[in-house]
């Protein structure tokens, strides 16, 4: 014989010991076993988040279409300021570029999000929409849309990188691109 059993918990059916157990479970969930430890943990977590998201991983919102379709308008990203501690920026990296001169470790509120296509000492040009690095055509798998830009060769200095957005279907005059000093590169886009 089978008897159906209702397994749903009913508070009114709980005996005093069971109710106490339930209350302690709720208390543990809300404030932990030890209030002091929980407060310390919360404080450490808060300070950690503030430090990380203020000085290390800068949360940014993409505003504009210059990096489309790889980074769409209003998408959220992070700029990692520790990306270039061990090595210098590389070709193909998407980086945050500050507008104002850097001073100390203050993080900028507004940055350009661009892709590095030219490294220090190289000469960059655009011929019928194709990027040429020292005269050789650069393979750009991230380029999705057709481009017809032409740009005379630009020689980069020892501390300069050439940066440009991914959306080159827009008119060249409406697109912000060019040489960026190394000191202006804040970090690499995380996503």
């Amino acid at each position, binding site marked *: 014989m089978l008897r159906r059993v209702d397994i749903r918990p009913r508070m009114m059916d709980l005996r005093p010991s069971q109710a106490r157990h339930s209350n302690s479970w709720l208390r543990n969930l809300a404030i932990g076993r030890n209030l002091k430890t929980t407060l310390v943990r919360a404080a450490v977590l808060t300070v950690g988040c503030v430090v990380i998201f203020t000085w290390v991983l800068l949360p940014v919102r993409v505003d504009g279409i210059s990096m489309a379709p790889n980074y769409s308008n209003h998408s959220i990203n992070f700029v990692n300021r520790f990306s270039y501690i061990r090595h210098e920026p590389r070709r193909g990296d998407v980086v945050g570029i500050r*507008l*104002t001169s850097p*001073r100390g470790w203050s993080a900028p509120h507004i940055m*350009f999000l661009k892709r590095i296509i030219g490294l220090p000492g190289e000469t960059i040009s655009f011929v019928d929409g194709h990027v040429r690095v020292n005269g050789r055509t650069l393979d750009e798998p991230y380029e999705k849309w057709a481009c017809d830009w032409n740009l005379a060769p630009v020689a980069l200095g020892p501390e300069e990188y050439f940066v440009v957005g991914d959306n080159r279907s827009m008119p060249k*005059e409406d697109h*912000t*691109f060019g040489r*960026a000093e190394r000191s202006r590169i804040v970090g690499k886009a995380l996503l």
Partner: protein
Amino acid sequence: MKWSRILLLAVVAALAVGAWVLLHPSPEHLIRKQLEGVAHAVSFGPKESYLARLAAAQRLAGFFSTNVEVQINVPGHQENRLAGREEIQQAALSAQASVQALSVTFPDITIIVNADQQSAVADLTLQAQVAGQPDMIVQEMKFTLRKINGNWLIIKVETVRTLS
């Protein structure tokens, strides 16, 4: 008892330092305040009356020296040059007439005060949102200031090309 005295001394010292800073603000603090004033005077809402806009344009002119030079050179746009307070006031009024609302802020400001403590350069990011336009305007700018009769006044404004 001993600890409470140390704590009291620390509080008194902190209050004294706070009062000193409040009464003797640094040039950076004063310049930052001036630049915030400029951003506030340039901005206007859609419901502001003509008189309020006129007063804002007059207030804006007060942040500049009489012989101020303004040079705006943005790629894809015609170069604009203004000279003197009058032209700035006129430019502000014509901007107010041509757009419905404008919001200007300077979110990143780097100030370098020269050794003589009488002149300074502020490198800043201008962020402007014009009513009805989907994209905001972002431009790096350089403001040169001089202390004239105890006030930090702007003597030169230039646009800077971040990516050359």
